């Protein structure tokens, strides 16, 4: 009834025990602080115990029915622990912290405790009988519940893996598929051996194979957990296979030749001819060996490294692409397409930085929205962090910072390399996962490391070139605008004076033409003033000769100047000067100019029937100093986000401004800011965007 342990059983169990212990310890020691690794060793311990107890249950000591039942129940006890532990492990993988919420975790514990305790009672196995001499346990009333618990967690684990498989990308996905493979293999086998055979077919014939099953599971999980480019075993396998081929080929040729020569010579003893054959053969082998070796190596390389590119050739192609163009878009596209194709990368991008802020992204595979998202991404923080690996790169699988890992996940980044040029961080290279799901190899990283400095210079050149083009376009536009602005009043004066000289006119007409010519002179003077002031600002010669100035008088003079335009557009103008700021300390001409610039902008860029509000009040600033704040608020075309950066630059005019009022030099805000600055004050503005109006404010110190 009780058979002694067979050698096969003992050996299988021992091998399984050793393999699982080795895997468990190996994985755990790689990162003892990670819960993925901790749960893995916990599962290994449970499985080891399971293998041991399972063996004893088949060959109970002492050999009695009661003892066998006791050990079988212990097997079930351990089985109850396996599936929830596996579930927790798969749910946590590949993170370092347990992801399950506390109350769910508590539920897992309670359910498992109930199931495990139940396994030790007659509820799961009432007794064990021996029909045909084989031990067959008899299920109790609680068996369906026990099974539900066991299978339930397996099913949930499976679902978790499927969801992860669906959601994850690249390397994580590849790892996940190892887990899926392991789980499917293991539990289909385990169900077959222990549940179907024992419970349904009522035989323990397959139970002895049980120990091997968990090894498959643990090996696939272990490989998924520790899979890393440094653990790439392909070169070793490929070399071994190539040498086996070599040995087989050489041996086959040698033996065949010997056999053939022995057959023809009809002798087996070693005479001078056999010796000669041997010598020729040896020479033949020696001479052909290197060629054969190369051939076989190439053959195996083809088999094992199908996706591997020639690094030298790729680097040469990349540097050719880099020197082929100075256009930033074209450069990025060419270089990244080449890189992505050879390395089989799904997506790649350059994130261009200005003073450690990401201002633009150019790439392939990320899509327009993906590239745009980089601009607001927290990735620029990495400019202040140096990767501790050598070569300097942030590689997803090596990151220990979970927050950073999540950012990488969010932006689908597998590798990130800062690109430096002229001793400064100018850009970032980001690469997505490999299309094959493989990890980046050591060769990939080496190629990237060699490629990054060159591309840094190429990107820098392309950006300088773009800047130069922009500067040249700006210069051309400036000449165009200035010549137009100076010629317009001159042509007006000329034609009006011509009319007076050449035509017969009534006195009133003469006066009107003379008035027009005079307006031309005034306009020309203003334009020249603005240009000369801008030149002054360049030389930083500006100061303010402050005296007490009557603000209400300036307000009304300015509004009077624009009364024609205000009436033409039917604008409502509210002006409100608080009694505490009627008199201010300023240089009258400069402050009048500032107010004029702001009011003119408000009037020109307002829609018809719009409202313009001009106010002044005194206040105490944050630094406790008293100041006067003048505000001009309109409901006009407003300022968009990209325009905000440029609004105070000389000659800057927004596209919308050009459409609404084409003849302007773009010097107003530039001059206003400089004049306010000459008083020791500051100018600021606010707008919610296009057609949402704009508020301009400036402050002047009161003392």
């Amino acid at each position, binding site marked *: 009834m009780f058979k002694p342990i067979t050698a096969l059983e003992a050996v299988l169990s021992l091998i399984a025990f050793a393999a699982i212990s080795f895997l468990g310890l190996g994985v755990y020691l790689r990162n003892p602080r990670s819960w993925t690794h901790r749960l893995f060793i916990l599962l290994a311990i449970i499985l080891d115990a399971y293998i041991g107890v399972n063996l004893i249950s088949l060959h109970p000591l002492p050999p009695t029915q009661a003892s066998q039942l006791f050990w079988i129940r212990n097997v079930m006890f351990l089985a109850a622990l396996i599936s929830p532990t596996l579930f927790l492990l798969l749910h946590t993988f590949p993170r370092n912290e347990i992801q399950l919420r506390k109350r769910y975790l508590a539920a897992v514990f309670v359910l498992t405790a109930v199931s495990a305790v139940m396994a030790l009672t007659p509820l799961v196995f009432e007794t064990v009988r021996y029909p045909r001499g084989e031990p067959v346990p008899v299920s109790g009333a609680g068996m369906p519940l026990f099974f539900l618990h066991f299978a339930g967690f397996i099913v949930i684990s499976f679902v978790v893996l499927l969801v992860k498989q669906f959601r994850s990308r690249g390397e994580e996905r590849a790892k996940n598929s190892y887990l899926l493979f392991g789980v499917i293999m293991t539990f289909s086998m385990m169900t077959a051996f222990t549940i179907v055979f024992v419970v349904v077919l009522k035989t323990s014939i397959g139970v002895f194979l049980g120990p091997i099953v968990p090894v498959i599971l643990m090996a696939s999980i272990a490989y998924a957990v520790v899979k890393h480019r440094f653990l790439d075993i392909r070169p070793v396998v490929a070399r071994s296979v190539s040498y086996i081929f070599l040995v087989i080929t050489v041996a086959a040729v040698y033996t065949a030749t010997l056999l053939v020569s022995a057959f023809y010579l009809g002798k087996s003893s070693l005479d001078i001819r056999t010796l000669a054959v041997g010598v020729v053969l040896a020479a033949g082998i020696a001479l052909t060996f290197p060629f054969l070796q190369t051939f076989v190596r190439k053959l195996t390389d083809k088999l094992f490294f199908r996706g591997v590119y020639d690094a030298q050739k790729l680097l040469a192609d990349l540097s050719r692409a880099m020197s082929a163009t100075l256009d930033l878009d074209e450069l990025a596209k060419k270089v990244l397409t080449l890189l992505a194709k050879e390395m089989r990368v799904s997506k790649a991008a350059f994130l261009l930085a200005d003073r450690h802020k990401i201002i633009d992204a150019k790439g392939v595979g990320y899509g327009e929205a993906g590239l745009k998202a980089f601009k607001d991404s927290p990735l620029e923080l990495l400019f202040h962090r140096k990767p501790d690996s050598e070569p300097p790169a942030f590689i997803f699988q090596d990151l220990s910072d979970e927050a950073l890992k999540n950012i990488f996940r969010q932006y689908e980044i597998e590798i990130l390399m800062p690109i430096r040029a002229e001793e400064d961080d100018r850009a970032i290279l980001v690469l997505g996962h490999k299309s094959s799901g493989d990890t980046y190899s050591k060769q990939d990283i080496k190629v990237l490391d060699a490629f990054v400095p060159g591309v840094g210079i190429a990107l820098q050149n392309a950006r300088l070139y773009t800047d130069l083009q922009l500067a040249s376009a700006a210069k051309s536009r400036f000449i165009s605008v200035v*010549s137009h602005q100076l010629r317009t009043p001159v042509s007006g004066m000329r*034609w009006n004076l011509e009319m007076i000289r*050449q035509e017969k006119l009534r006195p009133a007409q003469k006066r009107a033409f003379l008035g027009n010519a005079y307006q031309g002179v005034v306009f020309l003077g203003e334009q020249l003033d603005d240009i000369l002031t801008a030149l002054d600002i360049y030389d930083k010669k500006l100061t303010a000769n402050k005296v007490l100035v009557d603000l209400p008088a300036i307000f009304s003079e300015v509004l009077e100047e624009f009364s024609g335009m205000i009436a033409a557009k039917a604008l409502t103008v509210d002006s409100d000067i608080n009694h505490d700021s009627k008199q201010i300390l300023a240089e009258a001409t400069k402050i009048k100019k500032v107010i004029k610039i702001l009011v003119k902008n408000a009037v020109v860029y307002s829609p018809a029937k719009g409202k313009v509000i001009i106010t002044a009040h005194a206040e105490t600033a944050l630094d406790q100093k008293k100041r006067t704040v003048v505000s001009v608020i309109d409901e006009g075309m407003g300022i968009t986000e990209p325009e905000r950066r440029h609004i105070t630059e000389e000659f800057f005019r927004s596209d919308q401004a050009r459409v609404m009022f084409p003849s302007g030099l773009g010097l107003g805000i530039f001059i206003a800011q400089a004049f306010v600055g000459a008083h020791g004050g500051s100018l600021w503005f606010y707008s919610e965007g296009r057609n949402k109006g704009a508020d301009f404010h400036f402050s002047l110190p009161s003392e």
Partner: protein
Amino acid sequence: MRVTIIEDEEILLDILREKFSREKFEVSVARDGEEAVPVISEAKPDVILLDLVLPQKSGFQVLEELKADSELKNIPVMVLTNLGQEEEMRRALQLGAEDFIIKTQYPLNVIVEKVKNKIKKI
């Protein structure tokens, strides 16, 4: 003789209108790029005097629209502007302008003569 003047500077527009009226032209005017094509369609002038720096739409855009309009494309357009860079001149002529006059360089009489000559040639 009919002429359409497209000019946004009120002072220049006034004087051009006055001068051409005195020379017995039937004058129609537009003050921005948007008004230009409808005014020309309505007035069917013999010659168009087109400024390039205009609100809403630039003179270049107006020129493109005119040349794309089967009814209007044959009316000669004389660009009358204060721009004067090589590039601007080339672009206007390429788009189909027949003349490129820089305002400051010509007395009114000469401009009127040029317009009259253009009409005579037709």
